[in-house]
């Protein structure tokens, strides 16, 4: 352990990313993600890493992909409008299987919306922002400590699965300060690299878990990452039905078939809970307090808090749905996770909803009132 320090969420996130080995960052200023950009600019050159402020977010995402194929653990960070601009290149990183981390410090509303206020409106964008069928991995911290730990995990998952990983924070989490002592070192994962003779390297031939080995550009293992549907050599196969089918299924399967490796949840008072609140990030902070107060008033309430949002934690929700009297989904959007919980609950218990989309996180009393209605 290092000595405990007062850290801001964005600051802890940067420390986590650097501890996990991030040595390249490209970005463009935008509230409330700007501190990440500024801290990376300050810290990376001191670690021998590289930082660049690009001309826009399309370029930032492109530069991150370029650095990653050259061997870097690479990251970018933005919010709303910038995340929308990154989508096409995020899709590229998915199809070409380029590990990287995209931090989205969420703000509310479409377009520039509510720049300085918290929101959870980009949950579905983190899953479906890029076009086409594809896998998604997204994590969401609720504290300064978790900004650090989810950043480490995001980098590791990107390397493990060779795909972009999204970190969903918001202005509340990003700007809050808490005392935290980051660990001296963290466990890190590196992308699988080829160790066969160079002439035997088949760049998109997957291992038994569906992941191909990734060579660094310049290492002598030749490869051609391509935006098109491609065969095992990376060569475009845009009109080959069998190749296209196999690729899309593998891309989705390599993540979804190993979802339990990604699932990360926190449970509070769930053992005998009758009313289970399902909430993540800043909203879960209020939900946690509401659950405590409900318990003190004799209501058997509990909190199921996903730290990994995508792939959706189906098993954990199904388990709760089988024995709870009701699930209350509380979120900072108009029902993006509600639909997921309803799908998994499949009528086994009622699923109620609480949402707040005015740029404020719900007050614990508001969630408590809903818990009481359901009890």
């Amino acid at each position, binding site marked *: 352990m290092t000595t405990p320090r007062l850290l801001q969420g964005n600051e802890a996130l940067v420390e986590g990313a650097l501890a996990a080995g991030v040595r390249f960052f*490209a970005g463009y200023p935008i509230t409330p993600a700007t501190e990440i950009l500024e801290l990376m600019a300050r810290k990376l050159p001191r670690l021998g890493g590289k930082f*660049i402020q690009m001309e826009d977010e399309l370029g930032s995402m492109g*530069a991150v992909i*370029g650095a990653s194929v*050259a061997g870097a653990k690479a990251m970018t960070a933005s919010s709303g409008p910038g995340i929308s601009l990154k989508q096409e290149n995020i899709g590229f990183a998915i199809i070409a299987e380029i590990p990287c981390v995209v931090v989205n410090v969420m703000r509310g509303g479409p377009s520039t919306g509510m720049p300085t206020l918290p929101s959870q409106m980009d949950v579905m964008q983190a899953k479906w922002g890029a076009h086409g069928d594809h896998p998604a991995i997204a994590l969401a911290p609720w504290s300064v400590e978790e900004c650090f730990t989810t950043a480490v995990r995001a980098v590791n998952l990107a390397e493990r699965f060779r795909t972009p990983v999204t970190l969903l924070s918001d202005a509340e989490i990003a700007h809050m300060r808490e005392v935290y002592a980051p660990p001296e070192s963290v466990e890190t994962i590196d992308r699988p690299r080829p160790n066969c003779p160079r002439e035997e390297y088949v760049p998109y031939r997957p291992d038994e878990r569906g992941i191909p080995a990734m060579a660094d550009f*310049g290492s002598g293992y030749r490869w051609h990452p391509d935006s098109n549907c491609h065969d095992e050599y990376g060569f475009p196969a845009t009109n080959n039905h069998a190749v296209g089918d196999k690729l899309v299924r593998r891309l989705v399967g390599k993540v979804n078939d190993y979802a339990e490796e990604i699932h990360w949840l926190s449970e509070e008072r769930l053992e005998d809970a009758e009313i289970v609140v399902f909430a993540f990030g800043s909203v879960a902070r209020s939900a946690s307090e509401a659950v405590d107060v409900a318990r003190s008033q004799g209501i058997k309430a509990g909190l199921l808090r996903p730290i990994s949002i995508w792939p959706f934690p189906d098993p954990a929700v199904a388990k709760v749905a089988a024995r709870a009297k009701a699930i209350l989904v509380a979120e900072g959007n108009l029902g993006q996770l509600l639909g997921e919980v309803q799908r998994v609950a499949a009528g086994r218990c009622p699923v109620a909803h609480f949402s707040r989309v005015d740029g404020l996180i719900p007050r614990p009393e508001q969630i408590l009132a809903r818990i009481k209605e359901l009890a």
Partner: protein
Amino acid sequence: MLSTAQMLEKYYLVDKLPNIWCAGCGDGAIAAALVRAVDELGIDKNSLTQVNGIGCSGRVGAYQDFDVIKGTHGRALAFATGIKLFKPELTVVAIMGDGDCGAIGGNHFIHAARRNIDLTALVINNRIYGMTGGQSSPTTPFGDRASTALTGSVERPFDLCQLAIGAGATYVARGTVYHIKQLQRLLKNAIAHKGFSFVEVVSQCPIYYGRYNDEASPAAMLRWQKESAVSVTAAQGLSPEELQGKIVIGEFVAKDEPEFVSEYQALIDRYGQEAAE
């Protein structure tokens, strides 16, 4: 100079041929000029990285034995920037179409030039969108026809070399497919230059540009390149009226200026030294 057989043997993924280009397209000859330039410079195949955009021009690397990333439309220079900044020991060449670089990728183009990052940007200017079927591009000359300008373009075109110069590129040159030996020389100089190098090649797309503009034979298009070309030096003595319809070829700029990746490395070294003291 490498014979065609030697070139195919050493640099081409022969099993990926035939290529997708139409008969008479300029792209294949430009690809070969690039390979020959690389060979003459003695650059190791492992240390040359190509970034391709999207378009017919974006298929150059698909057949060549280098590390090649074919990114999204317009973003080749952004991908290239990430590669070069993280791994400066690589020689990075980005190949783009006129639409790829001049329209959708215009912002990355001017900023890569402004930074003077040590890359070579090669733009194949066929004055039309080839891959999507002959729409007008930012370099379609005023009055020339395209599928989205059937009676002639009413927009003014870009002069991509002047744009590169204005944005701060430290090596700027133009060649044509007809003047292929000169092109090879220009590419050699561009790759050897430390800083942002921009080479525009005037090329022919007989299938779309040619057909829409009553010039469908590749031979006629090459003849046009030959007859319209004037050298940079000769152009200096010509009036704007006399330069109308001409292709000015040769080197416009070759100068030394602080280069972005080296400047960044100097910053890293300075911090390293401070930490050691």
